[in-house]
């Protein structure tokens, strides 16, 4: 029951709306089958399968909103949930920022659903892990990893005639390979809508190679260094820029995009002109839902173009107040890059540090977007185009805004997963000068 077809969802939502007596009514439903498998110490630890459905009814009387839900889908229950949302709306305080629900929208078909991913079984998960464990055994390493897949649908309909439906699949895989003596550790991660693109063995081999090569790391002095950030390392820094794209926050003067006198950086050059970031729900490598949870269509949106802030995200209320288009927050972001592989970027580096992964990223100062965190699972010193030796991990204190002004070169984008948020991105590896490391860490 967790997955409804488009016709089933349409019929069900229409039936629910027929019970409404409110000024406006909106119904959201979603359901999913999730599966996961986790392993550590070269054996499976936990795994599971979870199915669930959620139905949410929002009723509005004027600017008073009530929300209720139920997970039983018989007629009596459906009417009951509508009545309950209406009772709550009558009790609710008026919200001056309430904006009437959206009318009908046009959503082109999405490309987010892949049947092969929806058909994953416990056996397929276990087989993928078996491949990964074999790599660990062959290389005498200790593996720990996680594979998680999701097959879900979402639909919404409201009294103004809006109807939206989408199905999506995704699989994320990550693995850490440590040496038996605990002196080396390597990591790799991949995420796809299509599980047939996932090669667990190949991903594990990357982690294994880093794990073996990172043993016997040497300490070098903290300070400013040229770094090459692999996409997984860049993702956890850059997503902090994306979280901060809210126009209201900037307009109110409390964001890194705020400027004196109530102005913002919108339309101004913020970072190096080679930086272009955008979202595109129909990008073949990183497709996302064509609609946001409030029904707004997701379109291709340019966020930073040639270093200039092109668009900010707006709630519908703030957009109405400012008289601009209400652009929703994107589900994923793509950054343009160059044509060089990571290996070519390393080859063209005289002195620098290769960073596989960054960890425990926290905002230190929202004014400058100063972030702190540490390198992890594969940090190497580069000299004259080759990796000379592994180095001990560093803590950094750096702002991604300052970092993107210190850009040296971008490589070829690839799909990666943020270890902090589990969000998928399409990002290039990037060479940055004067990246600030502030102390050494003994962690491996």
């Amino acid at each position: 029951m967790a997955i409804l077809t488009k016709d089933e969802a349409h019929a069900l939502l229409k039936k629910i709306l027929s019970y409404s007596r409110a000024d406006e009514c909106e119904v959201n439903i979603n359901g999913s089958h999730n599966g996961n498998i986790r392993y550590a110490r070269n054996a499976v630890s936990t795994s599971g399968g979870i199915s669930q459905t959620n139905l949410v009814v929002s009723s509005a009387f004027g600017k008073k909103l009530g929300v209720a839900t139920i997970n039983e889908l018989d007629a009596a229950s459906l009417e009951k949930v509508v009545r309950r949302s209406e009772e709550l709306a009558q009790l609710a305080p008026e919200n001056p920022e309430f904006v009437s629900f959206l009318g009908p929208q046009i959503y082109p078909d999405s490309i987010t659903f892949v049947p092969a991913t929806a058909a994953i079984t416990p056996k397929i998960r276990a087989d993928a892990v078996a491949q990964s464990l074999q790599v660990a055994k062959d290389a005498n390493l200790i593996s720990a990893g996680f594979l998680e897949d999701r097959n879900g649908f979402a639909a919404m309909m409201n009294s103004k005639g809006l109807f939206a439906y989408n199905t999506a699949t995704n699989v994320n895989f990550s693995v850490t390979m440590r040496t038996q003596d605990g002196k080396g550790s390597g990591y790799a991660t991949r995420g796809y809508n299509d599980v047939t693109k996932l090669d667990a063995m190949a991903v594990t081999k990357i982690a294994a190679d880093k794990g073996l090569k990172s043993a016997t790391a040497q300490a070098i002095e903290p300070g400013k260094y040229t770094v090459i950030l692999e996409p997984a390392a860049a993702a956890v820094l850059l997503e902090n820029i994306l979280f901060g794209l809210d126009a209201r926050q900037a307009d109110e003067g409390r964001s890194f995009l705020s400027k004196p006198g109530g102005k913002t950086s919108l339309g101004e050059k913020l970072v190096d002109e080679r930086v272009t970031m955008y979202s595109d729900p129909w990008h073949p490598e990183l497709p996302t839902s064509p609609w946001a949870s409030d029904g707004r269509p997701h379109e291709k949106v340019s966020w930073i173009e040639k270093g200039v802030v092109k668009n900010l995200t707006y709630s519908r209320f703030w957009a109405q107040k400012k008289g601009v288009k209400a652009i929703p927050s994107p589900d994923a972001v793509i950054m343009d890059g160059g044509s060089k592989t990571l290996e070519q970027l390393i080859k063209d580096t005289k002195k620098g540090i290769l960073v596989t992964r960054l960890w425990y990223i926290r905002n230190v100062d929202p004014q400058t977007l100063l972030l702190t965190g540490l390198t992890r699972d594969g940090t190497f010193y580069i000299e004259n185009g080759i990796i000379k030796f592994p180095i001990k991990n560093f803590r950094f204190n750096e702002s991604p805004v300052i970092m993107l002004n210190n850009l040296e070169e971008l490589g070829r984008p690839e799909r990666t997963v943020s270890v902090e948020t589990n969000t998928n991105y399409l990002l290039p590896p990037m060479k940055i000068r004067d990246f600030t490391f502030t102390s050494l860490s003994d962690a491996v």
Partner: protein
Amino acid sequence: MKRRDFIYLAGLGATASILPGIPLIGSPISVERSLERVDVSTKKKLADVGLNAARAKGATYTDVRIGRYLNQYIITREDRVENIVNTESYGMGIRVIANGSWGFAATDKMDNDSVSKTAELAVAIAKENSRLLTEPVRLAPQKGHGEVSWRAPIEKNAFEIPIKEKVDLLLSVNDAAMKGGADFINSYLFMVNEQKYFASTDGSYIDQDIHRIWPTFFITKIDSASGKFETRNALSAPMGLGYEYLEARPQDKIKGITTLYKDRYDMLEDAKAAAAQSAEKLTAKSVEPGKYDLILDPSHLWLTIHESTGHPTELDRVLGYEANFAGTSFLTLDKWESKKFNYGNNIVNIFADKTQPGSLGAAGYDDEGVKCGRWDVIKGGLLVNYQAIRDQAHILGLNESQGCCYADNWSSVQFQRMPNISLMPGKEKKSIDDLIKGVEKGIYIIGDGSFSIDQQRYNFQFGGQLYYEIKNGKIAGMLKDVAYQSNTQEFWNSCAGIADESDYRLGGSFFDGKGQPMQTSSVSHGSSTARFNGVNVINTARKLG
């Protein structure tokens, strides 16, 4: 909840853009529905269906958790309510051992057929995974408790307090802050009720009722001419209490440079102070980097304890089960076996406790049916113990689990989570003023701020909410742009004084993240104010453009 969201909730530099999108574990429900209870006999019948179905398919051990997880979040800013959300998540998780391997499945369809199928799926998953085992699961023995119950000793169920009363409180807090000069305030009241039922093939049927509350706010003050802004967050603690936490009492206030709170919180008073202090921060002196003696208030120190003691003594991390995500630990088994690993100065005594009333981690039993207790982790500065669950107890030579198993929802598999981990107060009579008096060059830090630590818990960096310079035993004014960096062992060995029991207070994390898939848990950390000598302080000010 996604990591990103609780990062923002915890740090909350950015507020308005994030909070309308707070993800909720569960779905919105009405207020009156949140007060309904599921009958224990109904839960027992469903649990038995699950236990029997798993056994019939070959499970050698099964536990069933039926959970009803209620949240009520009230979200306001300045003069208006942004959202009132009531959510419920109700369903069942079934965990089994079959062919020596764990399997888990969960469903929200609570009928006999669905429960049986879920149990069968859990067994099928366990059998599928058993071919990837290196050794079968070894569970520490656990005697069945029969039919028992435990209820958090709260005075006022926050879910029973009328919404209007709660909204009025937050709006009065906002009004006081705005009148006090704040430019923005976002205030929140988070309330949680876990109604948990646990049944296992050991013969336990445990019904528990757990409550948590967290009132908090985030104030911003802007200097529009320069474009600079400063923030000051609430000094409240999330607690395992009911609405009584918000009924201020004089005996719970510690008066000083700013008022600090024990088991009751005066939100209105703190908001007024915060409005003034956020303005003061704009013109405060930027810190000169260097070595300082730090006086750390419990509203700050809880997070340092959490990160540098709580996480590295989790046995699953020590063993490598979290290597792919949260990381491992520098507190390896050989250090524990040596019985002489010098974790900290000999005045440092740190204990685990899942029984402390009012704490976030308090429960009668953990999520695998083990009765909760208290034990030493660091004694006289030495590492003496970890935090373990049933399938790890044998590694420590224990005959029973320490009761540290927890799942954040019926749909999540339970695993090892941190109990309350707290620093014992100093044995000699000593006040905050006594500690400050002895410092020549130091900084007094109040409130938690930015926090980050490496994956083995050596190197950390912490900020706070309020920083006061100490010169020759006296407070010499406010500082800003402060963060300290240290190494766990070095830091705890620099501990040079701990205030006595009269200063002991709880802090805590409402959304502590761990595991894959990520699960959150709530945990308290108690301490008295403490002094740490010669800690490296950096200046965090930067310039854009």
